């Protein structure tokens, strides 16, 4: 009988340095001085996950691409988001969202269109699982149009959203004294209250033998494991880590996930044909 390979637990919470040790990144790509968090940009993050072992079980499972489009009005801007997550056997979930956000500290979304689509292991769209919704927040009322129906829901204050925070942290000052309290609509749909976002400071560290200075914001609140947002000196978000999940800035993320999807689907096809032969 083949011996089981010994696995060692990671033992400590994930940090940028640990991400490199575990092979999740080679190096961070720091922004140039002309990076403008309040301008137009596209950041793509590879979603990497860790089972807690050093040797195995750590994968890229998706990406989230966030595009910021500044508006002529200084009060608002647009975020265009696409998130793709590959499930086991190659089921793919794609979320597309176009949001109009207030140019406030938390990029509060006030109007958006969101769609969720599924593709099955052979790559075909599964129309009976797709959803679309259009939402408008006016005052403390959220009006939702979804599945041919309309709903109204009360909201307290101006909630932010997990994807919006990826934008917002880039515009915040590196100021240890300030802390923001707010609610979020996770995935633009699930309300999670009592969130706090605070700047922790600058952390000099060695990543792959190179000296680096990274700034950290922490988000703590109900229904989420704490998020740590790591930014460079020019306020570009390089990584967001929440427990065993890391969003890593990576221009090649989409390609990596396409490859991963293909790989998973091929492996499923192999399982299927083996089963067919057996039966």
């Amino acid at each position: 009988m083949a011996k089981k390979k010994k696995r060692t637990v990671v033992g400590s919470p994930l940090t940028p340095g640990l991400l490199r040790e575990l092979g999740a990144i080679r190096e961070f790509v720091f922004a140039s001085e002309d990076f403008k968090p309040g301008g137009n940009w596209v950041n793509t993050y590879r979603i990497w996950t860790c089972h807690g072992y050093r040797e195995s079980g750590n994968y890229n499972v998706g990406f989230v691409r966030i595009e910021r489009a500044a508006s002529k009005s200084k009060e608002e801007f647009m975020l265009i988001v696409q998130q793709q997550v590959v499930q086991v056997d190659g089921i793919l979930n794609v979320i597309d969202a176009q949001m109009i956000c207030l140019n406030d500290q938390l990029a509060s979304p006030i109007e958006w269109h969101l769609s969720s689509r599924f593709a099955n292991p052979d790559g075909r769209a599964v129309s009976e699982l797709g959803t679309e919704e259009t939402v408008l927040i006016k005052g403390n009322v959220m009006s939702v149009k979804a599945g041919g129906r309309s709903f109204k829901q009360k909201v307290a204050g101006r909630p932010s959203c997990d994807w919006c925070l990826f934008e917002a942290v880039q515009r915040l000052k590196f100021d240890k004294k300030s802390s923001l309290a707010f609610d979020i609509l996770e995935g633009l749909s699930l309300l999670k209250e009592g969130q706090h976002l605070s700047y922790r400071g600058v952390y000099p560290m060695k990543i792959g033998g190179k000296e680096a200075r990274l700034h950290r914001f922490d988000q703590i609140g109900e229904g989420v494991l704490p998020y740590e947002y790591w930014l460079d000196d020019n306020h570009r978000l390089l990584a967001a880590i929440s427990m065993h999940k890391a969003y890593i800035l990576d221009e090649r993320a989409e390609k990596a996930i396409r490859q991963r999807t293909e790989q998973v689907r091929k492996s499923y096809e192999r399982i299927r044909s083996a089963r067919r032969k057996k039966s």
Partner: protein
Amino acid sequence: MNKESKTKLRRHINRREFIKLGGSALAVLGSSVSCKSVSAAKQSRKLKPKNILLIITDQQHIDTIAAGGCRHVRTPALDRLKSRGVSFTESYSTNPVCSPARSSIFTGRTSSETGVHVNNLPIRSDIPNLGQWFSQETKYETVYAGKWHIPRSFTNDIPGFKVINTGIGGFGYLCDTVTSRACEGYLRNRSQSSPAPPKGWSRRGWARPFLMVASFLQPHDICEWLRLNTKDPVQLRYKELAGELPELPDNFQFDRNEPEMVKRTRQARDAAQGNWSKQQWRYYLWSYYRHIEFVDAEIGRVLQALEDFGYAKNTLVLLTADHGEGTGHHQMVRKNTLYDESAKVPLIFSWPGHVAEDRTDTTHLVSGLDIMPTLCDYAGIKSPKNMRGWSLRSILEGTALSWGRTVVTEVSSNRGRMVRTPRYKYITYKDDLVEQLFDMRDDGGETKNLATSSKYASTLTEHRRMLRDWESRLDVAPNVPNAESWGRKG
């Protein structure tokens, strides 16, 4: 399903009528006192819910619902479900390990019978699962989203079910969010307001009732959390949490007269390896509760879709978990022991206007074995043969006349057994002279082992006898080890 399984299943179904003639499964297999309110004549007059939604969470401690008294979480979805139905406080997993427990939930048979005595094994081919049974016996469309684990954790091929999402292991946000979105999409698109079914779906199929399983992975990611937090950091990573960390449970200290297997389970755990401080234990608890809130929100999305798209009144909703979580009780983390924190699971049923509302049932001993017969009862069909559990319908609708029973839970690859009676809990392991007996009325935290006290000798003997009686009725699968320990040949 392979050819051999199909043949076995067909044979099994043909034999059902014969079994029926021989008397009800309950009369044959129930304990000494039967549930008087369940009878075939009554069943035929009972109303059927149009749809059934079975929600399963993974590794959820029973005391994790705000409306049930847990002060450390905010769980609006679970609160709402609880307030609209019956929740059981004396509800046990059949085997506090993922695959074995799931095999019982989906078959109504013990894990030693299904052959799933440890993780990643398939259910014995001659025992039908819920999806297979409903596909054959009813017109329900059977759909499945999320974790399966019998044998593969996540798979697009589940016998008897149409899989709408597979999920991914160890990554709750990316698994459960996609699972709840798939369920939401399914409910939205088939709702009556849709002008026509999507391409490829027949109108008849579209109007069929559904049995949906939404199987969430959380709060199981606490296992990943543990592997990332074995080392005690001395200082809290987030200093503002210092004032809000939950207190340690009352039974953090306990009687160390335990079977070796239990001691070994504790020693093998990440917490013991990390030699945690009390502060780290409390931080672990805080983190576990955030996992609970996470899954609550995903459950909320599915329940909201039921409401928004007109299913709520016609849908029986059932929520349970495969097993619990140590949560620091007996200085345990994770599962795989027979203490209540690991062996107990939430169990809630709701069907507005039919199931009693906002009722907490603290008296009836129930288990994962009861799910299959209960769902068959509600669907108006006979259960498969040899059910080891009972339909809970009479309790849910307030018509149960008597309910005398014991609950037996298995563990550790068929090496351990727990017998729970209304007053006591008895625990025993193969080849271990240390037995445990707890008075659950006076010592609910299981801190004082009474097994060595002469005062309880007759109670101990009585529980040993009950276990022997129970075991003598089981049809243990050939692949299950240690069968001889329980007076049977595997």
